[in-house]
């Protein structure tokens, strides 16, 4: 048992992930320390804002797994983001927040997102729909969900007590609430929520590092490199692609739930064409084929995007587009990944 655990953790440093030595882990520990200390020298608004950035990173991690490692480009991340958010809203509005209900709702929303992804993925992968067609179908699903939810404005559109509210979206759902002796802890978009999301993010980050360096991850990378050869090594390619798709989509659902908890609202525009494209921009800019590069890239891009939105209003999306073009032309593997590699080369030369 202990040997298995040690073997499992040794995979954190496997060949599919950059950053294996002390040169990586010491700065990593420093950044982590900084992240944990951040609320101490920051106001509530900024802490909540950073927590908001973190909520999106799960979706980026999921896309990195399925696209960067598995070679499956999905535009459907925001569909599962929306499914997660709306499911959490419907469950918590109907059943309240007492007795840890919000935690059950969080788990149920992720599971529901994963089941939906399993169904969609089954027809896609077992129907041998790959490449650009998979992108088109997943984009269509996102837009379909957005259009559907946008027309649910009438009072007839409700699930139990929960009104879907059309384009204005659903609101009024309770924040994450942890049952505690002497009074429940309500994790509003501040300090508590920040730490919960940070811990979840760490858990997902290490989980993905272990996963991509496992046998499953090796096969996933093999499929990205050459699916026919992977099949001719006796692997059922469809099963592995479906597995990555379900995990990636479940992470998008987690993003959706956390976002909904953070703002206590969810709208159909979170599944729109623009929203569907953004995760691809975040992951591509960082470097899709490595989880660390993807997450760092996504976080930086989110910060830049928000700054642009606040200061430049309507030009933010155009600048993001230009950024993506520049990135693709100058560092097609991703800017952060490129920087990692340059640093590695310099160290080797020295």
């Amino acid at each position: 048992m202990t040997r298995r655990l040690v073997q499992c953790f040794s995979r954190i440093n496997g060949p599919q992930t950059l950053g294996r030595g002390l040169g990586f882990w010491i700065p990593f520990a420093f950044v982590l320390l900084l992240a944990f200390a951040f609320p101490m020298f920051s106001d509530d608004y900024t802490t909540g804002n950073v927590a908001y950035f973190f909520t999106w990173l799960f979706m980026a991690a999921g896309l990195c797994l399925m696209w960067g490692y598995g070679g499956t480009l999905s535009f459907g991340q925001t569909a599962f983001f929306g499914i997660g958010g709306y499911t959490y809203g419907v469950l918590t509005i109907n059943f309240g927040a007492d007795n840890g209900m919000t935690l059950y709702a969080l788990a149920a929303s992720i599971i529901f997102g994963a089941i939906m992804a399993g169904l969609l993925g089954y027809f896609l992968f077992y129907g041998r729909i790959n490449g650009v067609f998979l992108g088109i179908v997943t984009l269509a699903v996102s837009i379909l969900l957005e259009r559907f939810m946008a027309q649910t404005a009438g009072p007839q559109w409700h699930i139990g007590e929960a009104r879907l509210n059309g384009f204005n979206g659903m609101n009024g759902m309770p924040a994450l609430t942890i049952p505690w002796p002497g009074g429940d802890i309500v994790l509003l978009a501040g300090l508590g929520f920040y730490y919960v999301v940070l811990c979840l993010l760490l858990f997902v980050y290490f989980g993905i590092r272990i996963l991509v360096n496992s046998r499953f991850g090796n096969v996933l990378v093999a499929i990205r490199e050459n699916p026919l050869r992977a099949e001719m090594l006796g692997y059922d390619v469809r099963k592995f692609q479906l597995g990555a798709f379900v995990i990636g989509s479940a992470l998008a659902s987690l993003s959706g739930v956390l976002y909904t908890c953070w703002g206590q609202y969810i709208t159909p525009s979170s599944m729109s064409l623009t929203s569907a494209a953004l995760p691809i921009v975040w992951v591509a800019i960082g470097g899709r084929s490595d989880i660390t590069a993807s997450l760092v890239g996504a976080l930086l891009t989110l910060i830049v995007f928000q700054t642009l939105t606040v200061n430049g209003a309507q030009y933010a999306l155009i600048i993001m587009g230009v950024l993506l073009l520049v990135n693709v032309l100058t560092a097609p593997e991703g800017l952060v990944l490129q920087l990692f590699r340059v640093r590695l080369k310099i160290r080797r030369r020295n």
Partner: protein
Amino acid sequence: MSLLQTVKLNKSFGGLHVTDDVNLTIETGEIHCLIGPNGAGKSTLFRLLLGEYAPSSGNILYQGEEITRLKPFQRVQRGISVKFQVPGIFKGLTVRQNLEIALQSRLKSKELQEEAQRLRAFLQLDGSAEERAGNLSHGQQQWLEIGMAMSLKPRLLLLDEPTAGMSPEETHMTGEMIMELNKSGISVLAVEHDMDFVRQVAHRVTVLHFGKIFAQGTIDEIMASEEVAQIYLGEPAYA
């Protein structure tokens, strides 16, 4: 019982009959070469055996088991392995990773490392473990792919033009490699153009022409056949 047998195998694309009632048998322990002029249907037959194409009619039996409707990965799991004409390797990964991914389906950590090292030595890729597979020479890429196919410990190895693009020296070395594999108990079916290679390795040869089996026999019998020379070489037989 033959290791692999096709029974009245047919494949048509629209009105084009590419594989025509082919009854081919591969016996255990043999190196069988499939030759024929361009357009003879060799590649189609190869893909039918792999499971990439579904036959229009007919059956494929492997060790007596019907495998006609099995998916390619299911055929591989039963002991059929393949090497493609264009090197089917993972070019973005290192030589070590290529072999480890191939080996991980049947071996665990320590045995896997030992077997990977043994294979690298056999493939003369000992010094290239951390090299990206895409940076290897064409011949080395072909050998790496043979190594990956061998990693599965197959009973039958299907080779599609294993010496395509190789120098005469590399071709000869590949031939020796394949004969050594055969000695270890692996039967081989190779689609090949290079007659020197066929002469070097083949126990039996099948000639395909217009999708049909035109002739079968030892390499000497095939080379002595005037009809084969006419359709395949376009000239009278030579001794």
